C-alpha cells in the first residue's frame, strides 16, 4: 500500500503503540484485498458484544487502554450483550456481566461513545451520500451504503477499532466505484406490505446473491418503503447473503447511475410470492408451541415501539415477550409512556441490547427456550445455529401467538 508520512510514522510506532497495532492491522487487511492506499473516515461504528469478544477480547481492549489508546474520530457502538439493569432474570451470569462492564470501561477510556445501537442511522446521525465510513453491524452497513449512498465495508470489531484509532480505513471493496456496480438483476413480482414481508424479500435476494462481492439491482418495487421497512429488507439481505449493498431502481440514490449497457450482461432473477411462501415455510407452522417471542434485529424504532405498545394493550401473555430497542429510543418511549404500555402486559423492554448477541445459546438453555417466534427474518436465520427452532410471523401475529402460547 502507498502510505502517507503520517501512516508510515504510525506503522513505526512514532504515534504510540496503539496506533502502531491499528495501522499495521489495517495494512495487512488492505494488502489482502489489494488496497492501494487509505481513505479518511468521518466516524466509526463498532460491534463489540461480550459473547463475541469473550475474556480474550476484553484483555485485548484493556491492553490497548494501557497503551493510552484514544480514538481520533467520533466512534460509537453496536448493541451490548447484557442489559446491566436486567440480566439475572434472563439467566445471564455475573461472568457475562463482568465482561460487559470491563468492555464498557475500556471503550469509554478510549473515547468511544457507548451508543449501543444498530439503528444509528435512525437515532444518532444519518450518513451522507459519498461519505466514507468504517461501520460494523451488517444491517448498519447495508442501510448506510444502499439507502444513504455512503461508503463502508463490513468492518468487524477489530478493524472498526483500528479505524477509530487511525481515523482511516484501507481503500478497498465498497470504497471503490468499481465494487459498487450491480452484478445481478432482480425483479420483484410480489408486493411486500409488512416488515416481515420486506425481510423475506431481502432474505431471498441475499440467499441468491450468496456473496459479499455481489451487488443486486432490484426492479419492480413500486412503493417507496419506510425507513423501518427498508431496514428489515437490508438487514435480512445482509444476514442471508453477507450482502453489503443493493440498489433499487427509482428509490435508492445510486440506482440510476447505471445504464442499460452496465446491466445487459448480468444474470436475471425473479422473486414471486411462491418463493416467499417457500422460505416462510422453513420457520414454523400453525399450532406450533412457542417458548418465547422476541422483537429485535434490528432494534426497534420509535414507530415500531408505538405499534408494539398498541398491540400489547389489554393482552396477557402465556410466554415471555422481549422487546429490544436502542437507549435513544428507549428514553423517548419511556417519556411517551410506551414502555409502561408494553410492560403492563408482562412483556419486557431491554435497552441497548439485541437478543441474538445476548449469549443466546446460554439464555435459551437457562430458560428452556427452544421455539422462538419473531417478526425479524434476520433473527430467525441466525438462531438456528444456537439451538433454537425459530418461527416467523408478522408483529400482530407474534403478539396474538404470545397470548395463546402457540403459533396462530
Amino acid at each position, binding site marked *: 500500500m502507498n502510505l502517507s508520512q503520517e501512516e508510515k510514522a504510525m506503522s513505526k510506532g512514532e504515534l504510540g503503540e496503539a496506533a502502531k497495532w491499528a495501522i499495521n*492491522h489495517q495494512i*495487512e*487487511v488492505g*494488502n*489482502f*484485498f489489494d488496497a492501494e492506499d487509505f481513505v479518511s473516515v468521518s466516524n466509526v461504528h463498532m*460491534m*463489540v*458484544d461480550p*459473547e*463475541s*469478544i*469473550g*475474556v*480474550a*477480547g476484553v484483555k*485485548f481492549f484493556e491492553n490497548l487502554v494501557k497503551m493510552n489508546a484514544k480514538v481520533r474520530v467520533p466512534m460509537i457502538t453496536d448493541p451490548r450483550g447484557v442489559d446491566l439493569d436486567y440480566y439475572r432474570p434472563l439467566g445471564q451470569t455475573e461472568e457475562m456481566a463482568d465482561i460487559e462492564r470491563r468492555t464498557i470501561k475500556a471503550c469509554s477510556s478510549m473515547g468511544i461513545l457507548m451508543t449501543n445501537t444498530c439503528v444509528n442511522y435512525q437515532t444518532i446521525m444519518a450518513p451522507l451520500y459519498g461519505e466514507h465510513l468504517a461501520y*460494523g*453491524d*451488517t444491517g448498519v452497513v447495508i442501510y448506510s451504503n444502499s439507502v444513504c449512498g455512503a461508503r463502508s*465495508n*463490513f*468492518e*468487524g*470489531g*477489530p*478493524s472498526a477499532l483500528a479505524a477509530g484509532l487511525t481515523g482511516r480505513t484501507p481503500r478497498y*471493496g465498497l470504497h471503490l466505484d468499481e465494487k459498487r456496480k450491480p452484478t445481478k438483476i432482480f425483479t420483484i413480482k410480489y408486493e411486500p406490505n409488512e416488515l416481515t414481508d420486506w425481510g423475506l424479500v431481502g432474505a431471498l435476494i441475499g440467499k441468491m446473491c*450468496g*456473496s*459479499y*462481492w455481489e451487488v443486486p439491482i432490484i426492479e419492480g418495487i413500486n412503493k417507496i418503503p419506510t425507513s423501518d421497512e427498508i431496514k428489515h429488507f437490508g438487514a435480512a439481505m*445482509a*444476514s442471508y*447473503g*453477507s450482502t453489503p449493498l443493493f440498489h433499487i431502481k427509482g428509490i435508492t440514490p445510486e440506482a440510476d447511475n447505471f445504464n442499460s449497457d452496465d446491466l445487459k450482461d448480468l444474470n436475471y432473477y425473479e422473486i414471486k410470492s411462491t418463493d416467499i411462501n417457500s422460505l416462510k415455510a422453513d420457520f414454523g407452522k400453525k399450532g406450533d408451541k412457542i417458548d418465547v417471542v422476541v422483537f429485535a434485529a434490528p432494534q426497534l424504532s420509535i414507530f415500531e415501539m408505538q405499534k408494539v405498545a398498541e398491540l400489547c394493550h389489554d393482552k396477557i401473555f402465556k410466554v415471555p415477550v422481549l422487546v429490544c430497542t436502542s437507549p435513544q429510543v428507549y428514553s423517548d418511549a419511556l417519556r411517551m409512556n410506551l414502555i409502561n404500555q408494553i410492560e403492563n402486559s408482562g412483556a419486557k423492554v431491554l435497552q441497548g441490547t439485541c437478543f441474538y*448477541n445476548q449469549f443466546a*445459546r446460554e439464555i435459551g438453555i437457562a430458560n428452556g427456550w427452544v421455539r422462538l417466534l419473531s417478526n425479524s427474518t434476520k433473527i430467525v*436465520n*441466525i438462531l*438456528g*445455529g*444456537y*439451538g433454537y427452532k425459530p418461527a416467523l410471523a408478522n408483529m400482530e401475529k407474534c403478539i396474538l401467538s404470545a397470548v395463546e402460547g402457540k403459533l396462530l
Partner: protein
Amino acid sequence: MRVLKCHKGIGPKVSGMVLSANDNFSARYDLDRINGVFSRPNHKLFGKSYVDTILVLNESKGGVASAWMLYEMIARKMAPKAILFNKANTILAQGASLASLSICDRFEDGDITSLIVSGQNVLVDPPNGNVTILSK
C-alpha cells in the same frame, strides 16, 4: 504433491488435515464455539469438530461477529488451524489478521471445495499464496 496457487493470504504457514464442504461459513451462525463443532442443522458439516483442522469452504457469510470470535476461539485453543475459501469476505480476513489465523482465498485452479477433500493433509502457505496437497 500438488501445489494450488491462490492470492497471498494472512497468517503463518501451517499444515493439517482438511475438513471440506461446498458450504459457506460464519462463526456466529454455524458454530457451537464452546464444544468446537458445527451446530447449524442444515450446514453440510453439522456435528463435525473443526478444532485444529484446515477448514475448506466456499465463502464467508453472515455478520461481523466472526472477526472477534476467531480471536476468542484461538485464545481458548478451540479454533481451526487455517481456513481456505473460494472468496473470503472482509470480516473473516479482518478476524484472521487479529487472531494470526491462516487464511487464503481466490484459487487459480477453480473451486477449492472440490480441489481439496476432507481427510487430505495439506500445507497452507499464506505469505507465498499457495497450498500444497501432501496426501491423496
